[in-house]
């Protein structure tokens, strides 16, 4: 009986027979098709199955090969700032492998303001799937910093990795031998902050999170009091911003995103 259930064609048909409504909205908005559409649909299914979907505020799969196809937020594929649709500036390159900022002047404005998008400062995450190993002293991948409140993520600069979510001081850092892979920086309590690389914890910090910046988060650089700086040259094949993720959720998140990028033949 168990074997019969496992190979039932009816079960297979139910699982793969239709497109998730949220995925379909994104597919329609971005104009993607074929493998990209199939992979995106499976990504949404996997995120929902792992109970991660509801923790996301902005999800950027970077599919298609133009700014017009890569700007969409999978969680809310509406062409507006309020929906956290990306606006690209500077010389980024768009391809089937994702968004490649040039390290000179390219970045994406998410329009997500942490202080208004979150009700508490003690739970939040940022993720970035990097296909580039680079170590520029002035490279950062996600961030918004006012004079006193910081939320940022740096995958590898001067050989170091760090993240801050709602912090006010210098970050805890750890050596970063390369910057290839899927990074999730997450805060799950006022004094618990972790970074996971490819599902494995690589940093923990007890630094206190107190208040969130009241300016837009940028991808591909830091937003320093509304001036972009610290431009990254790391190609991005996925990014997200959302609530804090547990260890198990971070692993499930990695598995879903890695499956997604493997389907698209752009995994690292």
């Amino acid at each position, binding site marked *: 009986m168990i074997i019969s259930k496992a190979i039932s064609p009816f079960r297979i048909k139910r699982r793969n027979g239709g497109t998730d409504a949220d995925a379909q909205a994104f597919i329609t908005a971005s104009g993607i098709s074929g493998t990209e559409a199939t992979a995106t649909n499976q990504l949404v299914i996997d995120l929902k199955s792992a109970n991660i979907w509801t923790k996301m505020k902005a999800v950027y799969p970077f599919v298609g090969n*133009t*700014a*017009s196809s890569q*700007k969409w937020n999978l969680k809310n594929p509406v062409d507006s700032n309020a929906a956290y649709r990306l*606006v*690209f*500036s*500077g*010389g*980024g*390159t768009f391809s089937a492998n994702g968004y490649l900022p*040039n*390290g*000179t*002047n*390219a*970045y994406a404005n998410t329009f997500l303001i942490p202080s208004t998008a979150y009700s508490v400062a003690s739970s939040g995450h940022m993720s970035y799937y990097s296909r580039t190993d680079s170590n520029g002293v*002035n490279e950062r991948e996600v961030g918004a*910093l006012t004079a006193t409140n*910081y939320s940022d993520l740096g995958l590898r600069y001067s050989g170091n990795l760090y993240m801050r979510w709602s912090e006010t*001081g*210098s*970050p805890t850092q750890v050596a970063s031998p390369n910057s290839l892979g899927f990074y999730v920086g997450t805060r799950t309590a006022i004094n618990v902050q972790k970074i996971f690389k490819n599902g494995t914890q690589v940093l923990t910090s007890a630094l206190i999170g107190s208040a969130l910046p009241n300016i837009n988060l940028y991808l591909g650089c*830091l937003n*320093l009091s509304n001036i*972009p*700086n*610290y431009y990254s040259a790391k190609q991005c094949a996925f990014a997200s911003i959302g609530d804090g993720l547990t260890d198990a959720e971070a692993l499930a998140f990695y598995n879903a995103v890695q499956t997604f990028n493997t389907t698209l033949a752009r995994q690292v």
Partner: protein
Amino acid sequence: MITLKDIKRAQWDLYVGLLTIEQKDSLLIQWYAPDSFFNPVETAIENQWVISVEEMANCTNEEFMWVKDLPLIIYEPKPSPPIN
């Protein structure tokens, strides 16, 4: 004078297009391709403004096709302000 047509794709990271102050001002909040906006940045030399070769090469906005003819210079970034 070096221009866009004088360099290869592999050299794009080295160069940037040099702008006058008036040209820099004219590019602010303007798109160069669908859903992509110019972002002039200041170099290590005060009041020297540039855009990337990608913005020059990929510009499809008829109003700003002149960026394709900008003189190229080797990029020397302005030092980033310190952060904690």
